[in-house]
């Protein structure tokens, strides 16, 4: 498929998915009414307008933004690590965020948050970004940043965070345990407009800056010294990519918990369709990530309505078999 065509297709599909996500749920809303509310004509439909404006629309937007962020950050990470099997959780974001969230759940209970983010989300964000910065510091020496050391440091931080997490669970009571495990599964049920605004601000920054590094990422795939020989300021680019991905994944984890596999699987599917050129891979991944997470979250809300499944459970359920098939067939894709 030509890259341009894929990006166009995805760009056309995204609004449809958004509309479907707003229409579907415990109560099914008619498309025309939803469209009428969206353009501000809601006479005589107060209840429907409330559902759309306060519940479904912020949730759909948050879902799309988180999906796009996870996928574009995953694509950038895989390029940076020159490893098509890399995932943002590899550099410790998810593990750190999980410890941050658990710490808050166990020690701060239901304390209030600020600007729409619960304290748990803030804990997750701080934990996630701290883990990334720590990994980055560990891997950076006088000779620059070593990607191999960074992967190993990510594994070490992950293990450390895992054991701290287990220790916290050991101390937690039943209610806390349930909240921790629900948080780990991920979910977008906490969506509201202030969360949308926070994530949109981070996403705007990432969507503007990351695609400008597409050529540098392409050159980096050849190897770090090869990229340097092509005139790329490799160390500056690496620092920028690590900080951006930390912010992007950190904020996603903070508002939606640990949603796995989107960052890994989406860039892969896109690469299989249009190749590894980051000039197309980055925007196409962002769009496809938004669509995938919207579909998963809509399913999560519909299949066992009126309750809902944690969306992280669905992405893992869909993503893991795909990943396994990928591992089995990796030769065919020329990986």
């Amino acid at each position, binding site marked *: 498929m030509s890259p341009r065509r894929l990006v166009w297709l995805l760009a056309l599909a995204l609004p449809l998915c958004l509309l479907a996500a707003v229409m579907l749920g415990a109560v099914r809303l008619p498309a025309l009414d939803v469209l009428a509310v969206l353009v501000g004509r809601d006479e005589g439909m107060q209840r429907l307008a409330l559902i759309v404006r306060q519940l479904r629309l912020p949730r759909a937007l948050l879902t799309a933004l988180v999906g796009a962020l996870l996928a574009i950050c995953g694509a950038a990470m895989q390029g940076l690590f*020159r*490893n*098509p099997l890399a995932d943002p959780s590899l550099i410790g974001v998810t593990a750190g965020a999980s410890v941050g969230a658990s710490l808050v759940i166990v020690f701060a209970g239901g304390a209030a948050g600020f600007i729409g983010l619960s304290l748990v989300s803030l804990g997750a964000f701080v934990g996630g970004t701290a883990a990334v910065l720590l990994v980055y510091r560990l891997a950076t020496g006088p000779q620059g940043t070593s990607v191999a050391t960074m992967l190993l440091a990510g594994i070490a931080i992950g293990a450390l965070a895992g054991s701290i997490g287990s220790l916290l669970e050991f101390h937690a009571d039943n209610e806390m345990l349930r909240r921790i495990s629900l948080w780990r599964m991920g979910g977008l049920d906490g969506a509201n407009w202030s969360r949308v605004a926070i994530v949109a601000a981070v996403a705007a920054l990432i969507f503007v800056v990351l695609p400008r590094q597409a*050529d540098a990422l*392409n*050159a980096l*795939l*050849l*190897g770090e*010294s*090869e990229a*340097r*020989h*092509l*005139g*790329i*300021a490799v160390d500056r680019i690496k620092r920028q990519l690590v900080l951006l991905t930390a912010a992007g994944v950190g904020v996603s984890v903070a508002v939606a918990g640990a949603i796995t596999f989107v960052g890994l699987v989406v860039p892969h599917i896109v*690469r299989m369709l249009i*190749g*590894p*050129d980051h000039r197309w891979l980055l925007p196409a991944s962002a769009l496809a990530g938004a669509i995938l997470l919207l579909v998963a979250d809509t399913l999560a809300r519909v299949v066992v309505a009126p309750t809902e499944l944690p969306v992280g459970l669905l992405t893992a359920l869909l993503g893991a078999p795909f990943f396994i098939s990928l591992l089995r067939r990796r030769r065919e*894709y*020329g*990986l």
Partner: protein
Amino acid sequence: MNTPLLEVVGLTLTAGGRAVVEAAEFGLAAGEHLAVIGPNGAGKSSLVHALIGDTTPAAGAIRLGGRALADWPARERACRVALLPQASALSFPFTVAEVVRLGRSPHASGSIADRQIVAETLAACDIAHLRDRPYTRLSGGEKQRVQLARVMSQIWRVEDADDRLLLLDEPVAALDLGHQRLVMRQVAALAAQGVAVVSVLHDISLAARYADRMLALRDGQTIAAGTPAAVVTAERMQRLFDTQTRVITHPDTHTPVVLHG
């Protein structure tokens, strides 16, 4: 006489506190080809990597176009100096044409010119028929020719830069006899357009056939430097490689040929 394109003065390189190249000294004019020979671990690769600024010299100076190499901004240097490394670890399925196009990324020559250059370098390296194949599926020799086309495209045009330097670390190591000759002839054609070439070659006879001058290194020391006929003698081969050889003169090219003793 003009300032040479590349000047290396008293160059000493260290790695882990040990000198890997000591007091190397040579100059290279536009269009000249210098072949660096020597046993494994003699410092040949360290030397070519220093010439593109990968390492900071412990002593001495490297000047490109009369200006210290370290003073060139990265992008401007990339428009002038290209290096073919011994091995490349590209594990993403770029097509062959995409890999070669990456060589144009320091330039702002426009996509039409770039496409033309990619087509020319693909043809020069005899890989035009592979242009849409994924790089990851190629054989070792094909990959090497793709990488060569990539670094050639980086310094392909006269209008890209006044001073152009091509560094080749074992460019023909994985190639068959026919492609060895093809590649060396293409390198010679680039040199004829004013590109200075420094190559690391293990095939002494091939190096003697195509290089204007040779530099023999052993343990980082310069054992000999000069024309192929002056450098390649049985006595020197003994000193460099600790092995018996016979050196004869090629009946057609009149360059030295090393026979196993």
